[in-house]
């Protein structure tokens, strides 16, 4: 190992603290509340009033220009990087062109005032509130993305999505897309002046008598305006920094500010020359993309690969020290964390924790199949470990050549932070990408977008995030002849229902019928949303940093990007599999219950105690049945695998709005990146045949249901490995809980790494861990039925926490807090 790599690994040592600068900035962050900033909304609205009648793509470029010229800019004390999203740190801008109804409603306190939400509350001043209500919202009413979606959405699809909610599509109807990795590498290597020239050359080459060429003109003009706007934005920071340097008394800070001013005068117009310039360039790409698109998951790609040449050169030429590199990176981590995004209340429940999903990927393999881990990979781990913040979302890629040294440092970071980084398996993800048309180079260079969505660098324009198709809901509908017990609506009727099914095959047939029905509406809703985004909120700046858009003269939603797929995050697949498998076993195979008994129990949420067996007895029979995914039991595992394959096969047949317009793909792809939507989507699902009570959460991702995994982590991994993960190119989400005491020794860490490697060898796709806190253990003690799968290391062995005596539990609680 190179000594410089070893030097970087030392930054992960527990004895190394944050530098005073970073420590101070971190403290400021934790003392800053989330708030709402009206500035973008006001400037954007003014601009749109000035440009009525012009093509939308041009109007948005001009709005971005006005915003970047007029918005408040600031440099935080001690910061080494310029760039801010709103007028103060942790403030969320408002994007009125997407939707205003919910903003108006929630400003009025329905269901909660922004500042008094039970989760993710945002402070808003009376002044901001008044400005939004008077100067912003009235202009946009009936003219937003949401309005366009509603006018395009077929009535049947609206009912399917918004009433029965067999697929939940709301968040994309009121927000922007995001879900991309802009081409930072291009801007770093070539500079924006070169991109502007590329667009100008393209514009000059057009034959205006050709209607196709003519149609490209507004887009290319918009690209030039948007790129120039960012150059002005950078120049404003350069001026500000020069001014601040002049006034600065402290000599060291004065020098830093002067250097930062020079950097902002050079990039992003010209190619970056240093490590510091390269990282600064990334924010002159990332921030405008955020301000334009209103999306989340604007990710960073394989930073350890594309930043490394700058690091190495600066180190070789004596311009940089490891400590300085670490500080610049820590400033980057802090800046990413201070960005905020405001969502409506329902979607805040689905995305609770103010996540921006700005994923940053390290590790994996090079194009030649060599281990890609380098100094920057370790420094990235160090930043996440020492800062202990939720952003950036850190991804560690694993392949057969990844060293145990790297894995050990990575799992130690998880142990310290609690859940970051997550681990991704090259051996599954690369084939999954090749399978849907990615080139070998682009697939090998994949990075994560958002939570778990594998994407190429700078070659897709978003759309990995989409609605939440609710598989558990379809089981409920299938058992009721297509009728939704909650709303009384029958969208997709069939003759047989629980009570009249002749075989289990009939049940599966009914389920498949519902699945295909709601899949169609998921696709229709997805394409409606894309159509509206293309018409109401095109993104000229983002398109200018996505490969092929300028050369094709097309915005992303018109088919500009190299690749284009539409995702959709299946929720409750495992709930559906558990319910179906339990019905098969309990009703059809073992005949413990009749169809009518089960139907009555489900209809009454297991609360009718006058039947024999009683409602609760039936629930216990269902819970106890050996028919749940996650125990290395083939029947339920293959049921989940079968649903996933059926879903993938059918979904991949549908086309998105860019099919045939240039990009490779143009199709819908499956994923299980459900975020926290399983809580929200569970609310509309009645009691299920796996023993789950009505309205409670369903399963997230492909994780096992919370009290059903009984055979330990290897059995769980085997269940996961049986799923057709390679057919889920939109990404899989798999959560595993571990208590800190299980991994507090070297042996524990080694076994943990072996568990990950063993699972990845047999084609698990993604793994993320929760190192459970003492607080959780206390809750588990109080409410054991909710925590039956919690594994703890007791002494020389492991056991289920809730099975232990209170004294032992207390002992472990005390020890856990000691460990953390």
């Amino acid at each position, binding site marked *: 190992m190179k000594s410089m790599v070893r030097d970087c690994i030392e930054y992960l040592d527990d004895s190394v603290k944050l530098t005073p600068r970073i420590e101070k900035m971190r403290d400021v962050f934790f003392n800053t509340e989330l708030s709402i900033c009206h500035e973008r909304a006001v400037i954007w609205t003014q601009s749109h009033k000035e440009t009525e009648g012009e093509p939308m793509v041009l109007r948005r470029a001009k709005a971005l220009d006005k915003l970047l010229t007029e918005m408040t800019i600031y440099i935080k004390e001690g910061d080494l990087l310029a760039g801010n999203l709103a007028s103060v740190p942790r403030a969320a801008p408002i994007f009125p062109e997407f939707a205003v109804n919910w903003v108006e409603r929630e400003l009025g306190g329905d269901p909660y005032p922004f500042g008094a939400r039970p989760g993710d509350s945002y402070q808003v001043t009376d002044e901001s509130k008044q400005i939004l209500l008077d100067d912003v919202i009235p202009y946009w009413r009936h003219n937003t993305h949401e309005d366009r979606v509603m006018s395009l959405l077929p009535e049947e699809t609206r009912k399917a999505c918004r009433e029965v909610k067999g697929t939940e599509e709301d968040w994309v109807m009121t927000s922007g897309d995001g879900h991309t990795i802009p081409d930072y590498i291009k801007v770093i290597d070539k500079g924006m002046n070169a991109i502007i020239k590329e667009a100008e050359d393209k514009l000059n080459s057009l034959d205006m008598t050709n209607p196709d060429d003519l149609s490209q003109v507004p887009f290319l003009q918009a690209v030039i305006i948007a790129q120039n706007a960012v150059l002005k934005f950078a120049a404003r920071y350069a001026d500000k920094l020069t001014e601040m340097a002049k006034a600065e008394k402290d000599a060291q800070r004065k020098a830093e500010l002067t250097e930062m001013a020079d950097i902002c005068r050079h990039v992003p117009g010209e190619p970056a020359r240093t490590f510091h310039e390269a990282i600064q360039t990334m924010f002159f790409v990332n921030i405008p993309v955020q301000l334009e698109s209103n999306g989340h998951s604007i990710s960073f790609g394989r930073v350890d690969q594309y930043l490394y040449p700058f690091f190495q050169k600066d180190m070789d030429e004596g311009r940089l020290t490891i400590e300085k590199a670490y500080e610049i990176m820590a400033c980057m981590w802090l800046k990413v964390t201070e960005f905020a995004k405001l969502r409506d209340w329902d979607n805040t429940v689905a995305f609770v924790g103010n996540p921006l999903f700005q994923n940053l990927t390290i590790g994996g393999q090079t194009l030649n199949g060599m281990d890609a881990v380098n100094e920057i990979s370790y420094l990235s781990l160090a930043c996440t470990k020492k800062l202990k913040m939720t952003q950036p979302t850190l991804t560690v890629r694993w392949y057969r050549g990844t060293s145990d040294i790297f894995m050990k440092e990575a799992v130690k970071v998880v142990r310290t932070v609690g859940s970051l980084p997550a681990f991704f398996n090259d051996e599954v993800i690369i084939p999954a990408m090749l399978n849907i048309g990615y080139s070998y180079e682009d697939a090998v260079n994949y990075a994560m977008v958002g939570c778990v969505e594998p994407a190429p660098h700078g070659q897709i324009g978003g759309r990995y995030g989409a609605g939440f198709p609710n598989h558990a809901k379809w089981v409920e509908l299938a058992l009721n002849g297509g009728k939704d017990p909650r709303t009384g609506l029958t969208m997709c009727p069939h003759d047989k229902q629980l009570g009249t099914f002749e075989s289990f095959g009939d049940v599966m047939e009914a389920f498949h019928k519902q699945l295909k029905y709601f899949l169609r509406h998921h696709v229709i809703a997805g394409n409606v949303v894309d159509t509206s985004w293309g018409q109401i909120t095109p993104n000229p700046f983002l398109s200018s940093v996505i490969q092929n858009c300028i050369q094709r003269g097309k915005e992303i939603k018109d088919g500009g990007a190299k690749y284009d797929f539409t995702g959709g995050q299946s929720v409750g697949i495992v709930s559906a599999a558990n319910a179906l498998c339990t019905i098969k076993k309990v009703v059809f195979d073992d005949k413990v219950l009749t169809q009518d008994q089960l139907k009555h129990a489900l209809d009454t949420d297991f609360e009718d105690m006058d039947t024999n*067996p*009683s409602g*609760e*007895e*039936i629930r*216990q*029979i269902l*819970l*106890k049945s050996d028919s749940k995914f996650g125990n*290395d039991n083939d029947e339920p595992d293959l049921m989940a695998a079968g649903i996933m394959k059926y879903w993938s096969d059918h979904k991949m047949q549908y086309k998105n709005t860019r099919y045939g317009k240039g990009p490779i793909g143009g199709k819908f792809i499956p994923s299980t990146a459900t975020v926290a939507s399983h809580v929200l989507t569970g609310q509309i699902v009645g009691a299920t045949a796996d023993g789950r009570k009505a309205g409670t959460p369903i399963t997230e991702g492909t994780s096992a249901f919370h009290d059903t995994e009984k*055979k*330990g*982590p*290897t*059995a769980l*991994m*085997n269940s996961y490995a049986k799923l057709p993960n390679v057919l889920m190119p939109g990404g899989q989400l798999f959560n595993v809980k571990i208590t800190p005491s299980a991994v507090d*020794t070297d*042996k*524990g860490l*080694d*076994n943990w790494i*072996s*568990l990950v*490697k*063993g699972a990845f*060898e*047999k084609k698990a796709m993604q793994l993320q861990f929760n190192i459970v806190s003492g607080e959780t253990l206390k809750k588990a003690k109080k409410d*054991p039925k909710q925590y039956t799968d919690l594994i703890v290391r*007791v*002494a*020389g*062995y*492991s*056991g289920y926490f809730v*099975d*232990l*005596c209170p*004294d*032992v539990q207390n002992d472990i609680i005390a020890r856990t807090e000691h460990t953390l």
Partner: protein
Amino acid sequence: MEKGKIFDIQRYSTHDGPGIRTVVFLKGCPLRCAWCSNPESQKPGMTIMFQPSRCIGCKKCEQACPNGIKLGEQGVAEGCTLCGDCARACPSGALEIKGEEKTIAEIMDEVDRDASFYNSSGGGVTISGGEPLMQADFAVALADEVKRSGYHLAIETTGFAPWENARQVFEKIDLILYDVKHMDDAMHKEYTGVSNSLILENLEKAAKEGFHIIVRVPLIKGFNATDENMGALADKMKELGLREIDLLPYHTFGESKYKQMRREYTFKGEKPPQEDLDRFVAMFKEKGITASIGG
């Protein structure tokens, strides 16, 4: 086909030998250690466990019982034939049978499932108990099958069995985890119900055969965690040329199981203080023996 009495198969076990392991627990034990953390392992026959926290009070168990035994008394009341009908009727899993008969093939079906994890971790299979040597023929047959599959194989044993039984099992094993509870015979008798002489004789024979042995001691303050006992054990190990020992500090994990068996856990043990543990480790080190805390 030959069957063995199994009370549990535990996967992802990380403290009974190296790496990630599957532990096959054989039922029946000749010792009655006062602190036993697996009381359900002791009797060779079936044991019925009852967990009141899981009971929903439906009394399906009473209806199923041919001998009219009441809720909560299954498996312990007079007249119970341990037929298991009550547990099979229990909808919630509050009643559980421990001690199913399983064939080698059934056990291997479970064992094979984690093969890739044995590979990635340097783990394997551990045969434990109870006292696995009580089912020596079965243990030999199981060991043969595990070794034919190419897995690392360990055994956890008290060593309390006729030497011939022990030897034929040990010959198949890669690593023997050999419990020595106390060097003093009177103390051993008092706390485990049997003399330690057979155990120590077998240890000596096993050492002479050259088997890979790690000695294990459950360290209990007020019983065996004394300088005198540890010193005697270290001397014995040195004499036999044994170089490794695991010191397993006392815990009360098994206590809830006593309740499930409707027995009282009367043992009052204590975990030795850290300074004692450190001193013992140093004592063994002086004799050239590597001691580690925990498995």
